[in-house]
């Protein structure tokens, strides 16, 4: 599989500018009528290499600074946590980093990395784990072997596992100290209920995890066909591939793992309430949304931008913050993943405005399922997304990592080249169509975290309410 040609030209702004409204005062030009030179840019193209054991590597040279960056992505994550052992992916990643390797203790690894000012982080998300490594070029040969050993042959020292478990348990104990953190964590549980992604770690599940669990989890997921890497910086392409071959060439393991089934479709709406004392409520309304590979990804991206992620002008922000003055944080987010997507809209407001703000959020979401988005608003969203696309290429590391992720996610090789064109081509009726399909009021998952005795109206006036407890 080839990464595809990355060469394309940025030619924006000039063609897209509309006629201004002729309203500017004489001394200053109307900002809507400013003329901009064309912007051209051909991002450098990383080279794709496949090692004999199946490990895929993207390589991009950049001599600006004497540094080397490596990003790795691993097909694993908390979605793969066994039932009753929630938190295993997270602990595995943490203790791989801290628990030493076949040739060094964890403390020796830390001493070497920190003395050379190299950084290495490893973390597990829901559907993937990532590793990021930074090192000055002069120290590369001293430290690269450590990076390789941590991925291939971690030692999982018992003491470091104990420490990681203790810290994780304390972290869980402290989640409710920050109400918004609590709210978004609980929201995941209710949105993904019945799917592994909705099972999150607890003090009990962490307590059950043992060293053998980590070893088994590592064996299952950390293997050459289940990992991809991107290396960039002050390197020689051929030389670096040789170094990867030397360190990773003997790595063996099973083929790529299968994806965890996506969360099941919601068949009904639900309102969940979690009692928490404090001056404010967090209100979240969420839906399952199109996956990244779907054609609906593009219209839904625009829809989300207009509804709540497009800054001050987006509808939720503009109404709930600017017009009503009822929130500091309000908006929406959308992420298309493999096999599914997630959309959430939210506002954080004072307790006695909870009912009012919840109702406004519902109305804003309902409106996009009933009325077409206006031409001008759609044009604004398209221009915004297309014009800021250039920032996806802000550093060499980012460019290399992005190519790797395209292959990792199974996106078409021309994904980046075609992205702007596909956004621009979305017709207004498609936004209405995806809104009707994905933002159905009778399938909304709602979570409200707050103190109902201070609400302006009872939640029961919105429908059946399920009280939940944080665990």
């Amino acid at each position, binding site marked *: 599989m080839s990464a595809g040609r990355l060469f394309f030209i*940025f030619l*924006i*702004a000039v063609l897209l500018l509309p006629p201004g409204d002729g*309203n*500017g*005062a004489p001394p*200053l030009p*109307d*900002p809507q009528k400013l003329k*901009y030179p064309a*912007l*051209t*840019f051909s991002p450098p193209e990383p080279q794709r290499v496949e090692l004999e054991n199946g490990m895929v590597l993207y390589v991009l040279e950049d001599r600006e*600074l004497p540094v080397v960056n490596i990003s790795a992505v691993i097909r694993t994550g908390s979605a793969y946590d066994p039932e009753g052992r929630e938190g295993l992916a997270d602990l595995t990643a943490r203790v791989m980093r*801290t628990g030493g390797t076949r040739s060094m203790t964890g403390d020796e690894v*830390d001493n070497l990395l*920190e*003395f*050379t*000012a190299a950084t290495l982080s490893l973390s597990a998300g829901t559907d993937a784990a990532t590793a990021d490594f930074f090192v*000055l070029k002069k120290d590369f040969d001293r430290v690269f072997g450590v990076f390789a050993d941590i991925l291939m042959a971690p030692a999982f020292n018992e003491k470091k596992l104990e*420490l990681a478990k*203790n*810290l994780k348990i304390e972290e869980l*104990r*402290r989640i*409710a*100290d*920050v109400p*918004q*953190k609590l709210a978004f964590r609980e929201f995941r549980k209710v949105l993904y209920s019945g799917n592994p992604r909705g099972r999150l770690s607890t003090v009990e599940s962490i307590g059950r995890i043992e060293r053998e669990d980590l070893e088994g989890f590592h064996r299952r997921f950390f293997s050459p066909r289940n990992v991809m890497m991107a290396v960039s910086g002050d390197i020689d392409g051929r030389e670096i591939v040789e170094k990867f071959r030397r360190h990773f060439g003997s790595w063996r393991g099973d083929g790529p793992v299968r994806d965890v089934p996506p969360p099941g479709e919601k068949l009904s709406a639900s309102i969940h309430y979690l009692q928490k*004392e404090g*001056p*404010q409520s967090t209100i979240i309304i969420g839906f399952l949304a199109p996956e990244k590979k779907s054609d609906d990804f593009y219209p839904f991206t625009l829809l989300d931008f207009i509804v709540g992620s497009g*800054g*001050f*002008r987006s509808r939720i*922000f503009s109404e709930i913050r*600017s017009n*009503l*003055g009822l*929130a*500091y*944080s309000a*908006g929406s*987010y959308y992420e298309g993943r493999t096999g599914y997507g997630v959309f*959430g809209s*939210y506002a954080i*407001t*004072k307790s006695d405005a909870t009912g009012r703000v919840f109702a406004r959020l519902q109305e804003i979401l309902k409106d996009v399922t009933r009325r077409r988005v206006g031409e001008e608003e759609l044009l*604004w969203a398209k*221009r915004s997304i*297309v014009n*800021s696309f*250039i*920032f996806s*290429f*802000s*550093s*060499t590391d980012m460019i290399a990592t992005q190519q790797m992720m395209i292959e990792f996610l199974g996106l078409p090789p021309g994904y980046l080249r075609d992205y702007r064109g596909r956004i621009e081509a979305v017709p207004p009726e498609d936004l209405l169509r995806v809104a009707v399909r994905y933002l159905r009021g009778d399938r909304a998952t709602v979570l409200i975290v707050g103190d109902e005795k201070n609400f302006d109206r009872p939640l029961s006036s919105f429908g059946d309410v399920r009280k939940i407890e944080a665990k």
Partner: protein
Amino acid sequence: MKPMSLIDKRTLLRTWLPLLALMATFVFAPSSAPACDLEKKVRKYELENGLVVLLLERHVNPTVSFYIRHRVGALEEGEGLTGTAHLLEHMLFKGTKTIGTKDYRREKKVLDEIRKTGNALDLERLKGEQADKKTVERLSAELRELQTRAKGLMVDNEIDRLYTENGAVDLNASTGQDLTTYHVSLPANKVELWARIESDRMENTVFREFYSERDVVNEERRQTVESVPKRKLMELFLATAFKAHPYRRPIIGWPSDVSSLPIDYVERFFKTYHAPNNTVIAVVGDIDPAATLKVVKKYFGAIGRAPLPPLRVTTEPPQAGERRVELLADANPYLLIGYHKPALPAFDDYVFDVIDALLTRGRTSRLYRALVEERGLAESIDTANGFPGSKYPNLFVFMAAPRHPHTAKELEDAIYEEIEKLKREPVTARELEKVLNQFRADLVRDLDSNRGLASKLSYYEAIAGDFRYITGHLQVVESIRPEDIMKTARTYLTSENRTVATVVRKEKP
């Protein structure tokens, strides 16, 4: 010294976590070789009106980052008027006479009436119990009606729309004790758009939606302070550590001040302190410096100088005895310890940068190894130099969360043991070398970001008076000897110079 990063103007989901942290610090990067290079590459100009402009070319990709820093912050606010600098920062997103209006002449008439009515309403409300309910109701109704009329004459959030539509990212602003900052990154062909908007709002900001924005700030306060015990503790801690100097006051403002901030005062504050002779601009990225300077001159050059009033700042008297304060809350224990110390460019401030790294930078740092790993007392431990501001003598702060069942007291005592070690035993050459290596690497790393560079250049130009503070930093740090660290620790990290604040779990009745 790590500047505190302050209060963000807007919060989208991604920025929540950094906002919830006590401070989003940027670790400052000192250095030698690449830094000298940097010194040569940065072009510095001063326009006739006093505006300082720093330009740096980087042709990695066609984008540019812009930072504007005004030398004004919460420090300059009068008594009873806390929160002014921060509310003003919000007002700068409301547009100008030519951006965000449908017909400014008509709109202005309504805005003037809003101002009159709003002032009368505030004055009545300030009477507290004596306020006349009927008058309050009448004025509130009038204000609502006027606000609806004004709404019809304005264009909502137009600055944000213009920027966003043109591909802007990282559009935000922040208010600190010392500085107020506006920043954005744009595709490289949009330099003129930035100059057009920023020069206009620096001079012609129109105070639209002033009264509803005060409500937004109250929500911001509920969300970021009142709902989060460790943030609330920070406020209490600063009010305890500083008794006289304005660093004792919260940037976001005390609730009663914010609720009645007078629009006229906020506007006067704007006219006085957002003047070009009080401002530093940094532009970093894919630019042609000569052409960029021309655009900057064209748009910013016409803004008039303003006389800066002499600033009378009370000096904090030396602390003579430990101060302790606690916050009862339905939350896990949390601990803050702070020591007064001098501001940059005092030699001791550099020494504290080293102490900061020795104590908490990375897993091999002293406090992490001892308190988190070996003794298991802490869930997290961090330190910060330069709190809550950098311009005036400030604090060196420890922030720590005990791990259950260990108590804040156990953790506090363990921190003191490490401080005593710092006073007693010289740091080894290898430990010091590690810290220097980290500082050197930071600098190289930081060169990889337009935004990071623009932020740092403008920050040190505004705070230290010269961006070359960055390049000189490592030289000073490299000269620090183990005895210096012991001496600084002995001088400042003493019990009578410290303030301790803790979150204590409130027992349920």
